[in-house]
């Protein structure tokens, strides 16, 4: 049953991802991306990670993609936008990047997952039952990995400052 659900959502996710990059209309692309994000959230639920799934829908599907659509509508982008890949050199770089990605996927597929990544069955469910879905994520995040977490926030701040600088050349 779980396996059927996994393959269904995996197939939907991959098909939507392909449609996302092949559609000409930016709005259609964005909608297919939303569909991919949803299928990923469903797969997270199958992995006993309901918190990550809820955050995935809340942040990506509910906020970021809405902003994407907002920008697309505000600029009223036409149906045939020029692509970023231009000329023979652009195509060559795109093909090279794609080949690197395929190589990485094959390497990951061939390598066996390290043993410490595979938890004994029922570990996640037990932790959730004992400490709640959020505390299971919050404790490591704010105790063990506090410094990386804070550094990430600086990264986001840099992105915001960059966006403001780009949008307002003359401050």
């Amino acid at each position, binding site marked *: 049953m779980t396996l059927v659900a996994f393959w269904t959502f995996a197939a939907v996710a991959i098909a939507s991802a392909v449609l996302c990059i092949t559609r000409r209309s930016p709005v259609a692309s964005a909608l297919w991306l939303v569909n991919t994000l949803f299928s990923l959230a469903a797969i997270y639920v199958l992995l006993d990670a309901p918190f990550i*799934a*809820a955050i995935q829908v809340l942040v990506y*599907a509910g906020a970021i993609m809405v*902003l994407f659509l907002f920008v697309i*509508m505000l600029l009223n982008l036409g149906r045939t936008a020029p692509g970023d890949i231009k000329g023979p050199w652009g195509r060559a770089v795109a093909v090279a990047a794609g080949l690197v990605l395929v190589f990485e996927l094959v390497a990951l597929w061939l390598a066996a997952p390290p043993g410490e990544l595979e938890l004994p069955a029922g570990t996640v469910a037990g932790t959730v039952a004992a400490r709640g879905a*959020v505390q299971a994520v919050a404790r490591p995040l704010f105790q063990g990995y506090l410094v990386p977490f804070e550094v990430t926030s600086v990264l986001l701040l840099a992105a915001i400052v960059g966006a403001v600088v780009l949008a307002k050349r003359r401050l």
Partner: protein
Amino acid sequence: MSPVTGSAFFWTSVVKILIVFGGILSLVAFWTWVERRGAGWIQNRLGPNRVGPEGLLQPAADGLKNFLKEETLPPFADRFVFLLAPVMAFVPALITFAVVPFASPLPTPWGLVSPAIADLPVGFLYILAISSLGVYGVVLAGWSSNNKYSLLGGLRGSAQLISYEVSMGLSAVAVLVLAGNITMNEIVARQQHSVWFVLPLSVAFLTFLIASFAETNRLPFDLPEAEAELIAGYHTEYSAMKFSMFYIAEYSNMVTASALMVTLFFGGWDIPFTAWDNTPPWTVLKFVATFAAFWLKVVAFLFAYVWVRWTLPRFRFDQLMDLGWKVLLPVALGYVMVIAVAVWGLGAAGVPFGLGYGLILTAVSAVLLGLLLWGLDRNRVIGGSAARQRARWLADAARQRGAA
């Protein structure tokens, strides 16, 4: 008694889904009637009273009309997205309710039936996640109609919903800090063992209330459809059943938002001043009593929606954005910090969670709420126009005495 498992779990879930969604849709139909009769009452006129006793069958007549009307499709509209948009508004509005517990557990021959459709471990986050998807209906309807007014409505809708979602989430964080968990059952249980969170978290309730009016696109925040400016905003081009689906979505969102305010701040299915309803031997009588208590509270909030709609005028869009980002967001953020410090301090002082704990926080929040209302008001609303009118009368009287 142990919870239901196996095929009994499946069948009880199916029954719960049918009852809850049937119930919500009937409540929505009934509430369109209440809204129009309430509008008539507030504006000193009758409202629809011809179809059936007191006009009670008016929703059925409207539904029939919407089924039989012509479905129009504007030329140059994006056909697929145009058809998709009402569905994207309709579905999230109906499935958000799934995690709200609406009564005490019900004992059956097969075991104890949980009062919510799904007891998710992420409870409240599920509601935030799914309700944040409702905006797609507004945005896509506005964009696909190929109509400038619709597009403006859609743009306003997405900006407004994203802005107020932040304040809504932040004011709920105060509740989650106090409850210590995000499952809806735990939030209700914590309120049963102290006081309803509306007292210790009054500022959060105020910001949550305002944000939920904005999230449901209701007056004074119905800018996405503002009929005086945008014809009907994002659903201008929709007719018949597709238009009706937007309406059902709006009213279901109202029901869910009311249920959410009841669960987070008014004790959920708790009956006040007694512990009879929340102690274990669960009986059918307790189920019925708590069920009635929950829906009574929800209906009270639903009536507040109607009341506010016919009392307050619509905001201007820049005022809306100012209120969201410059007032609600800082207030909600600051209040979360205050509550977190207070909870930490009470924990460090060793105060046990209970009535006294709640009353200490109530005192803190009452002071903050008073300061906030005084700061927002500064003698302009409370006693504002009435005080000015009184001053005018007094001045007139003095002038007449002087003339005489």
